[in-house]
Structure formats: structure tokens, C-alpha cells
């Protein structure tokens, strides 16, 4: 049996990868510091409060990471208008027929683990598949919730106009109690997402063998040769990879 020929395709552009890893770092930092803020550990110290600022530092890191997370998200939204088709907002729009067909296909093959007699290579998504797209949409919605609730809790201690834009959230939801609760529960959704996301990346890399894991580092994925249009001039070194 012949090995299939694959072509190297730039799927995730540099800004997308940059966004992804900054997002990973800030979410990890925000989750860890968030847990610390929610339930701080006992500090064994005999120092005077004057000489300590540990909890203040934890909160500072949380707020700083939150700002990075926020602006990073804005960068990604911008890139969804100027980036390639795998980065475009259209790739996250779950209402086209093509998307839904792919959604059910992924549910059948990858989630319910059924096998097809005659697999169609076109069913394998070059970028992310429709189920993944939907999960990213949910995550984006969660990021918005975290932004609104987080800045709402933060606004009162800040003089800057940006957090001040969110002062209406707390009164609307019925006070800081509720806002804090939502902020905390939404964090857990980020954790659940991360677990499933990492598993599925490994799953696809293992079953499809086209560089799912490494694609978020180098940006390249490998696509079956028969799916790539013939180009007139082919670079020698790239053609038979």
C-alpha cells in the first residue's frame, strides 16, 4: 500500500499562533491567581503587614494578565477580518449548510467513533472543524462574560476610563455577589474547555497524522496532495514532502 502524498499548507498565521499562546499563558495565570484570590492559602509569616504585599501582588498579576488577555482578544478579533480564511470570522460562523454537514460528520466519526466505508477526504477540515469552531465561539462568549464581570468588579478601584465603561454591569445583575459568582463559574468553563481541547488535539494528531499538534507552533498542517490545486511552477524541495 502506497503512502499518501501530503503538501505543507500554512494554516495558522503568525498572529493566530501568537494569540493562541498568549491566550494559553494568560488563562493559566488568570486561573491560578483567580483560585488564590477566591480562597487564599494561609500565609505563615510573622512579618508586619507593612512589610508584606503578597496578596496585593497576586491581585496585581491577575489584573495585569486580565488586561493582556483582553487586548490579545481584541487583536484576534481584528485578525479575523484581515487574516486568512482559517482565521476569518466566517470560519466561526456556525449557520451555513456546509458547516452543519461537517458538524454532523465530526459528531459521527470523531465523537461517536463510527467508521465510514468510503471516507471522503474533503470531510477532513484543513483548518478547524465545525465542532471545534462552535467550541471556540462558546469560549469567545465566555471571554466576553469574563471581561464584563471582571472589569465590573475591578472598576471601582480604578480611575481609568476603560474599566469605568463596565460600571453598569454590577447594578444590572444585582450586585457584586452575583457578578463574582458568574466570574467564578465561567472560569470553570475555561478549565473544562482546556481539558477537552487538548485531548482532541492529541486525538486528531494520532488518528490523522498531519501535524495537528505542531501546527500551532509552526503554522503548517499537511493536506493530501489531491486536495491542492496544481500549480504551474513547483518548488523542488516542497513538492514531495
Amino acid at each position, binding site marked *: *500500500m*502506497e*503512502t499518501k502524498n501530503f503538501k505543507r499548507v500554512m494554516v495558522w498565521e503568525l498572529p493566530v499562533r501568537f494569540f493562541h499562546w498568549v491566550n494559553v499563558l494568560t488563562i493559566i495565570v488568570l486561573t491560578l491567581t483567580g483560585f488564590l484570590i*477566591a*480562597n*487564599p492559602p*494561609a*500565609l505563615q*509569616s510573622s*512579618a508586619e*503587614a*507593612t*512589610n*508584606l*504585599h*503578597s*496578596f*496585593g501582588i*497576586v*491581585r496585581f498579576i491577575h489584573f495585569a494578565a486580565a488586561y493582556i488577555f483582553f487586548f490579545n482578544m481584541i487583536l484576534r478579533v481584528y485578525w479575523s477580518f484581515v487574516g486568512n480564511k482559517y482565521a476569518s470570522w466566517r470560519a466561526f460562523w456556525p449557520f451555513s449548510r456546509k458547516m452543519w454537514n461537517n458538524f454532523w460528520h465530526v459528531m459521527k466519526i470523531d465523537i461517536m*467513533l*463510527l*467508521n465510514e466505508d468510503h471516507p471522503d477526504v474533503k470531510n477532513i477540515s484543513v483548518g478547524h472543524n465545525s465542532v471545534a469552531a462552535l467550541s471556540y465561539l462558546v469560549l469567545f462568549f465566555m471571554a466576553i462574560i469574563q471581561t464584563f464581570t471582571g472589569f465590573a468588579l475591578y472598576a*471601582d*478601584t480604578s480611575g481609568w476610563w476603560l474599566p469605568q465603561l463596565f*460600571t*453598569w454591569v454590577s*447594578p444590572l445583575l*444585582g*450586585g*457584586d*455577589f*452575583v457578578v*463574582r*459568582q458568574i466570574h*467564578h*463559574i465561567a472560569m*470553570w468553563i475555561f*478549565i*473544562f474547555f482546556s*481539558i*477537552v481541547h487538548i*485531548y482532541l488535539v492529541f*486525538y486528531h494528531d*494520532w*488518528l490523522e*497524522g498531519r501535524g495537528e499538534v505542531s501546527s500551532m507552533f509552526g503554522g503548517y498542517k499537511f493536506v493530501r496532495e489531491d486536495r491542492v490545486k496544481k500549480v504551474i511552477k513547483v518548488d523542488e524541495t516542497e513538492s514531495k514532502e
Partner: protein
Amino acid sequence: MSTNNEKRDTYYQSIIKQGYSRRDFMKFSTYMAAFMGLESSMVGQIAQSLENTPRLPVIWEHYQECTCCSESFIRSNHPIVADIILDRISLDYSLTLMAASGHQAEAAKAETMKKYHGEYILCVEGSIPLGDDGNYCCIAGKSAKETFLEAAAGAKAIIAWGSCASNGCVQAAKPNPTEATPIHKIVKNKPIIRVPGCPPIGEVMAGVIMHVVAFGRLPKLDRLGRPKAFYGKRVHDTCYRRPYYDAGLFAETFDDENSKKGYCLYKLGCKGPMTYNACASMKWNNGVSFPIQSGHGCIGCSEEDFWDNGPFYERTTKVPGFAVESNADTVGKVAAGVLAGGLAVHAVAANISKRTELMDRIKRGKTNEKNIDS
């Protein structure tokens, strides 16, 4: 009761008539400026306003409540304050404090409402039960809702005293059997000042009511209709134990060494970080102390639904829809565990179901490995 006075005295005239001196009057004005959160240069303006403004009649209604607001008010900083505002000058009707009772009292109220239609200030203490036609709270044969709507119709402004009138407080806690309702949900077309707290600080109450009666307009309110001067900051942000919080020094139990040292009560469920009130700056009982200074965390009594956002002595909050004792972290940990287990099963199932495909690929890969030249 001064309802029947044909000519309305100014505040100053009333105060002097009651036997207070000019000096007492100036003291009173200074207190009021301080309570309203105004600078000292405003004292003259308050004095002038009180000298020239005819007194405003005040009707103080009591519905579903415990009278802790009135109790707090009559203990506000200086006796002259409560004395002047409540007893001698303005109060035309208050179940708890008036000397009159029965039909005469009700008649006096009706007269005030008629005579000063559109001028009097209506103070409301307590929530209004709407369940079962409002039968849970009836005064003089009328339901609370009926009395309130009647009194509100001719009011210039309404002050909602305490968490009951502002948010519903304890009696509105789930499942709220009497359908206790805060007043802003019943009357929409009148300016309403919400002064939440269980009770609100006496000095705050004095400051708010004096602002309205002396200046004839509402103090600056925030988005929830609370006076900004008193509800603009969290208890946490003005708390004297805040340095311990920033240092990460927390009391773990109420009887440990850290608690004795006066460390932050955050881990003991202090709701100061979520509660907007002036407790930490104005304090209670003539500035003697406030809950946190006395070693007990804030329970957030001036926040909406504080009773349902418990427990009071833990940082965690209950998650609605789950078992009684579960909090977000417990639910989260269990869900994460189930999720991880599910994924492990999926991983095994994937390798079994897709084995042909996988074996083929491995075989091809190994063949290629053998055929590598160079």
C-alpha cells in the same frame, strides 16, 4: 404633631421655638454638613437654607419590617439631630414614634396628605407584601400596598429606608412566601432614594433626609438609586484591616492567633469586598465601632439578596440548582473528574474503533522507514 399649623415655620423658627439656642442650631447644621459628606464651607449654606425654608412635612410609613431603621435613626450621632428631624419638626405620621393613635392619627395623616399634596416627603420602612392580595401586612384595615400607593400619590419624593424597602431583605429571601417587594418595583413615577442596610447607619439616614428637606432636592444617586456620598465605596476599600488583606494575612478561624492579631476576615466570609456602604468610614453608635472592628466579618446587609448569597462565614457561595452544600468549586472538581474519565474512555474506544485505519498507517510508516536510502 404640627399638622394643624396654618402658617408653616421655617426650620430655624421651629428649632428656636423648641427652646434650642442659635449655637445649638449652628452645631446641628455642622453635623448635617458632615453627614451629607459636604465640605465645611457648605455649613453656611445649610444654615441659610434652614433659616429660609419652610418645614417639609414627613410621613414615615412602616410595613414589613423590624423597626431597626427607626432604632438606628434615633441613635444617630447627636440627640439634637433625631430630636429635631423626627420628633419636633417634620414628622407628621410615624406608627412607632407619634403620640397619637387610632382614628385620630389616621385622620391627621389624611389631612397632611391632602393639605401638602405634592410637597411632603414619604419615608418607607419595610417591604410591601403582594402575595394573597397583600393580606400579610394590614394597617388600620388597609393593606400595605393600598396605604403605600395612597401616600405615594401625593409625595414629592420617597425615601426607601433600609434593605426591606430597598431590596426586600430577609422576608424576600427564597422562597419569599409573602412576595415581599421593594417599593421601587411598585411605584415608578416618583423620585426614590434607596438607603439600604439592615439597618442603615443612623448618620447616613440623617444626612439623606436632611439633604432632601433642607435643599429640596435629591442627593447625587448612583445607578441603583443610592446616595453616592455613602454608597460609593465598598466597605472593603475603606476598611482599616485592608493592609492585612493586601499583605495576605488572614484569620483562619475566629479563635486563632491571626484573629487575635486583628488580621483580615476575608477567609471567614467577610462580604466587605462586595458590599457598598459607609460602615468602615462613618462607623456605628457615634463612631464607636463597626462589625469588622468588632471581629466579625461584614454580612453584606446592604446588598441585594444578601440573605440568599450565603453562607456568611465562608468565601464560597452556593450554586443554584445543585445540592444545598455544593459550591462552584465542588461542582467544578466533580465535573472535571467526570470529564477526564469520559475522555480516557473515549481515547480507548477511539483506538479500538479506528484500529484498521491506525494499523494500516503504522504499517505504511514502518515500510517507509525500512526503505529510507541515504
